[in-house]
């Protein structure tokens, strides 16, 4: 029973690390994508077919989702350093 508990804890730690890394990375990419969209780098607005009137909305969504993803991912990554 103790071995099962320890292995569940270990699996959770591995999963938290993996998911945390992925979520933080996706968050960073979302923020960077939002910045590229704002600056129209590499003609991204035309490639993504983003209508001009919806640009502020896209940017808000990308930035908010991006930052929340980064912070949530970081909490998962650092969970192993504070958990008993």
């Amino acid at each position, binding site marked *: 029973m103790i071995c099962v508990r320890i292995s569940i804890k270990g699996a959770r730690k591995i*999963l938290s690390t993996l998911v945390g890394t992925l979520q933080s990375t996706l968050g960073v990419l979302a923020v960077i994508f939002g910045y590229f969209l704002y600056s129209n780098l590499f003609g991204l607005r035309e490639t993504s077919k983003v209508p001009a009137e919806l640009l502020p909305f896209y940017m808000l969504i990308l930035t908010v*989702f991006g930052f*929340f*993803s980064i912070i949530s991912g970081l909490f998962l990554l650092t969970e192993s350093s504070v958990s*008993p």
Partner: protein
Amino acid sequence: MKRKLGFFDAVMMGLSGSIGFEIFVLMDYAYFGLAGPSIILALLLGGLVNLLIMFSYCELSAAIPEVGGEYTYTKAAYGGLVAFVSGCLRWLASVFGASLAALAFARQLSYLFLRIAPVFEVFVSIQTPLIAVIVIIILTALDVKGAKKVGPMIVVTFLALFTIFLLSGLWHGLTPPDVVPKPLPQGLSGVFAATAYMFPMFFGMRALVAGAAQIRNAEKNIPRAIILSASLIVPLYISVAYVAVGVVPLGDFDEPFLNLAAENILPGVGGVLFAIAGMVASLSALGTSIAVQSSVARGMSRDGYLPKALLSVHRRYGTPYVATIAGSLFIIFLSAVGYVEFLGYAASFGSILVFALVNLSLLKLRKKKPYLKRAFKAPLYPFTPIAGVVMSFVLLVSPVFFGDVNAISALMSGLGLMGLVLLTYYLRMVGRHRVQVALGGISLVMGILTALLTYLIETEFLPITLSPGSLYILAFFSAISIVAGILNVTVRTPKIF
């Protein structure tokens, strides 16, 4: 730390903190875009407001001669949230100032190429933000390695340069500028806006307060040095502005204002000298700002407001590399944007708010600790700190009333950042576990919404067209968010016993 510096050293510290790159970059927009020849009035007003604020600094530095400056004063007066806010504002002001310094360097480099190698100037002027970013990276690396910074000998060189500029200008012959803003009273709003924009030219003087621990007989020498520095800076700035305005008419120029004036007075050499001086000043300010922002971040980390990771020291160089690199990333991002006017206002607003808090701290400490030993007391109390608070407020709002888009953007960005600061403080007080659960809930909702959105786009229910690759990315993002949300929500409660 041994107190080795005397009164003269303290004055030089105040002057070297003030005379910097700001004069080479801020007067452009203030003259051409805001107040015209009335920037002379704007500088006088800025000097008077600065003197009011410095009286408060004098009293507080004499009463609390400890390292930390504004953060220490607000902590003693209010503690907690207000100290955290003032620390964050100080950090933001350093970051914005550093970005401005990097861009100022790039602009002066572009001008230098214009004068000595015009064939490269076009490339350099287009790549100004990129040059600024490269300079930041180099100076950050040097700071991490613990390289020594340029000392206050710069102020002697600059004083000599400005003296040559003034004497040559008077010899050259000037068109006396009409400093009264027209039409009155509407023209006054431009003067106030220019005062707010150029205010960073004055507040470097508080470097003197930051170095309080090194000054002998600090209770007497610091207040005297602050007043003397403030009294020397204002006539210097006004004289330089008077001469520059007298030789450069209003118009649409690409070259920096002071460089243009110097070139008109000393053809062939004036512009180049000022470009080199501007580059040296910018590099010095940038190096100092990178160090200051890391120092402020570490101070707040030490007090538990920011993550402990910021206190990490490099194993080989012994420098606070995490705090330095984290702050430098923000500086790089701001410099890459490349908006000098926005950064000028942002740097100014951050510091003006800090000044208002310092004045309020003085009022609070006079009531809370009336028996604190004060070697210097602000004259005409409570007029001076109240006037300091009122003038800070006026300087904050006047560019907005003037309708300056850059000021409005800077103020809105500042308010947004302050919201984040307050949220950070609140989250810190609530505790990790509750925050993690809350974020888990948010992540779960984000994941479900994204999954729903992906489904609606896939089934063409929403009139949005996305490539199959983008839909897969959205689906992946929603899956990760849902799993992360579940993991965060199901985190175990920490055991108290």
